């Protein structure tokens, strides 16, 4: 949405990752969102995560729905193809794109209106299918672009800027994703980049449906007293179950790790490791049933439960379910796809 071009000149001493890219190579256009918007912090965490993972920027496909959150893919990874689809339907488009070329990294960016209201059906089904993606829900409990209506994730009793109280039950997207079969489920806060960045990295490495709900306050319409999605509320009620570090390989793990309440989970196919420092003593993120009840209890208490809430150590993705060929479909030609005239003659003969 911007007409401003960023300067292309880089400072020569900007740090580079192992592919030689600087953080600037992962940036996009200048954001047109409101100053202080939580979504811009998420974009910054995404840039950081991709930089640290040393992903080739063009090997990422960014897909989004409609809304403030869905505009953000224009503001990071400018060398990647992006697709701003239709409201609530990003999951199906991402599924199709993923089927066409399994070699890319798929990032889905959505909001609470997009995913929990109009798109709740597609949200549920993309998790069920185990599409290999990282699905980021930028959750502010409010419709920003249409100026302040409650969304379906607004908590019961939360107050709108103009004073109305929300009477409807909130949809808890992490609980929903978990029940629908997502194999990586996390919640974070846009104001906590230290927690969010490694979660994104782990989500990208995860083979299967990775879902990260990020509470992302709307400074224009939902950051007032009485809102449960304001910066102040989330800071006061943030209950992190664990702190996560993501390591590209076992060898890379730093030696300065204090042993103790640490859980290791393999992440993805290439030997990466997730190390979790337990903050809640009884929390085992590989135990799905326990995760479901923990999330429900926290919601009852009005806590914002964050961290890696669930990860399946042996996840499978849609391509595994469909037993698809290893080469991307969009690279297959006649030789691979067309059975030819001799076969057709046989088929004809069988139809007489």
């Amino acid at each position: 949405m911007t007409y401003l071009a960023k300067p292309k000149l880089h400072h020569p001493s900007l740090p580079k990752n192992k592919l030689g890219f600087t953080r600037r190579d992962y940036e996009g256009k200048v954001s047109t969102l409101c100053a202080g918007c939580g979504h811009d912090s998420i974009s910054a965490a995404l840039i950081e995560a991709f930089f640290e993972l040393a992903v080739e920027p063009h090997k990422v496909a960014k897909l989004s729905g409609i809304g403030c959150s869905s505009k953000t893919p224009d503001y990071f990874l400018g060398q990647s193809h992006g697709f701003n689809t239709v409201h609530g339907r990003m999951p199906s488009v991402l599924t199709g794109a993923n089927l066409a070329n399994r070699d890319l990294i798929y990032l889905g960016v959505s909001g609470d209106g997009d995913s929990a209201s109009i798109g709740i059906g597609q949200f549920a089904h993309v998790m069920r299918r185990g599409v290999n993606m990282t699905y980021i829900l930028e959750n502010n409990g409010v419709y920003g672009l249409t100026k302040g209506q409650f969304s379906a994730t607004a908590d019961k009793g939360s107050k709108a800027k103009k004073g109305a109280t929300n009477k409807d039950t909130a949809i808890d997207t992490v609980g929903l994703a978990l029940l629908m079969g997502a194999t990586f489920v996390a919640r974070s806060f846009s104001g906590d980049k230290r927690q969010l960045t490694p979660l994104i990295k782990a989500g990208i490495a995860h083979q299967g449906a990775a879902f990260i709900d990020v509470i992302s306050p709307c400074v224009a319409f939902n950051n007032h007293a009485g809102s449960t999605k304001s910066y102040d509320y989330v800071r006061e009620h943030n209950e992190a179950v664990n702190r996560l570090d993501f390591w590209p390989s076992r060898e890379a793990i730093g030696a300065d790790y204090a042993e103790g309440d640490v859980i290791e989970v393999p992440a993805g196919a290439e030997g990466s490791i997730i190390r979790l420092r337990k903050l809640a003593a009884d929390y085992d993120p590989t135990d799905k049933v326990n995760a479901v009840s923990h999330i429900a209890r926290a919601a009852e208490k009005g806590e914002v439960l964050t961290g890696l809430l669930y990860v399946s150590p042996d996840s499978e993705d849609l391509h595994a379910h469909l037993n698809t060929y290893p080469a991307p479909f969009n690279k297959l030609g006649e030789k691979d796809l067309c059975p030819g005239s001799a076969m057709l003659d046989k088929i004809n003969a069988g139809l007489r």
Partner: protein
Amino acid sequence: MTTTTIKRLEALNDFVVKFANVNGSGSASANELFAKAFLRMGIPVSPRNIFPSNIQGLPTWYEVRVTEKGHLGRRGGVDLMVAMNPQTWAQDVKEIEPGGYLFYDNTKPLPPSKFRDDINVIGMPLTEITNATYTDSRERQLFKNIIYVGALAGMLGMEPEVIAELIGEQYKGKEKLLKPNLNALQLGLNYARQNLKDAMGLKVKRAYNVGDKIFIEGNAAAALGCVYGGATVCAWYPITPSSSLAEAFQFYCSKMRVDKETGKNKFAIIQAEDELASIGIVVGAGWNGARAFTSTSGPGISLMSEFIGLAYFAEIPAVIIDVQRGGPSTGMPTRTQQSDVVKAAYLSHGDTKHVLLFPHDPNECFHFAAEALDLAERLQTPVFLMTDLDIGMNQRLTDPFKWDDSRRYDRGKLMTAEMLDAGKEFGRYKDFDGDGIPYRTLPATHPSKGAYFTRGTSKNPYATYSEAGADYQYNMQRLQKKFETAKTLVPQPVLTPAKHPARFGVIYYGSTSPSMHEALEALSEQNIHVNALRVRGFPFGDELFDFVASHSKVFVVEQNRDAQLKTLLVNDAGINPANLISILHYDGTPITARFIQKEIAEIVAALNVRPINIKKDKAA
């Protein structure tokens, strides 16, 4: 019942048999066996399922037209009714042509009031025979069907060896089922030979009119076309009458698209949660360079509306196969119509228009499906294959499929990394070639060039968001130009000239085709000569304008209430509606030759014009 005063229809290789059954009674495979036996005797047939939206218990019919001349449309009328459903008895008896035949199970005698005095009644104690022969109730039901096929074969003079051969093929490797089926067939044959010797005036005799034609449903043919056309992604949601298309794609892919070395699939089929997700998956795959399609029917088309607008405006290839059924709303899910034409042509909000293809038989379903995949990529837009239940769900005799092995998929204007490195300018929505079609890059084409943000909002030629009026208009006019280009790429109409100079023309499309041709022959015998143009694609090309201009009146024959193709002719092609006369059939049954003939003859009579004087015309 039979008395000497009743007229007896006599016909050789040219009659209509209708089976009235109860849904779920196993009659379908026996009836199909009956139909196929004629083909093996070299006599063309055209069978049609007339079935309810139900799994078990409701009435279902199967109509077999035996037609040595190869008239594959529905004729209208029934010469022999095989009445196996007491529920529909009265209606079934009523449908028989005077002098025609009623075949029924006379185990329990019926009062004379149940019959008509102008038809020939043939009774056979089917229940008595099956009860005496079989103990299991399911066997009694299933073999009753085969027994009546045997009896009909005996009466009509069909070659029993041919039916036995077909049964043999059906139960190949299942010897346990083969023998009792052959026995049941023989049982029926013997009964007819002994008891119904001269009951039937309809006869068949081996002919040589089937040639190398094949017998297949349009849905299976379209699915095969998608396999040959290189579709790798199919997303669908179950809906009658299109479900068998996706299932056939699954079947053919499992036979021909599994990599021999790895055992891995070179296809992905998703049964989506609804039609919105189906088309979303297709759009996502098309955006990322895989050939993708969905198959659906009217209600699905309505649901896909928003995504189709996105694909049109963001210029993403997609193939939508619409197997049309009776609308509006849930309408008549198991009946046929051509009533999605206008909807598909202008689907979605804003100024949108789409490319439509109209196949008229399974052969064109195959070829147009493959063609649609090419066109969608060439034009970077949704392409609709507009078939219907009549073509899609009935086995039809059709020309064998052909494939030229030197044919290459037309991937359209794809900008490659090499082109970008060579300095070729990339403007995703810019018209470089003057045909309105821009170049596109696929995701991950190049590390630093050619990436863009696809969106449904307005943009400038370089894919940057823009609400500037000039940018918007440039884009809309370019899309219009692209649509003009499409005129030259869609399948061109097929002209069938009358044998004599003709004042009148007729435009028709899709499943109307076989009945139309039969009607034209009959009209010609009445000295009514009509030139015929079969439309095969939208947007319409110049040939259509010439056709309309060269006739005083042009009939437009369609299977919908609102004259939808005529609407396109008037609205999109700007043809004067005063020159067009609609002939509309929309009761859900396939249009018949008799209906078309009658309608045209009546209108011509009312117009009171004499045929063009042939001699005078030649002199001029």
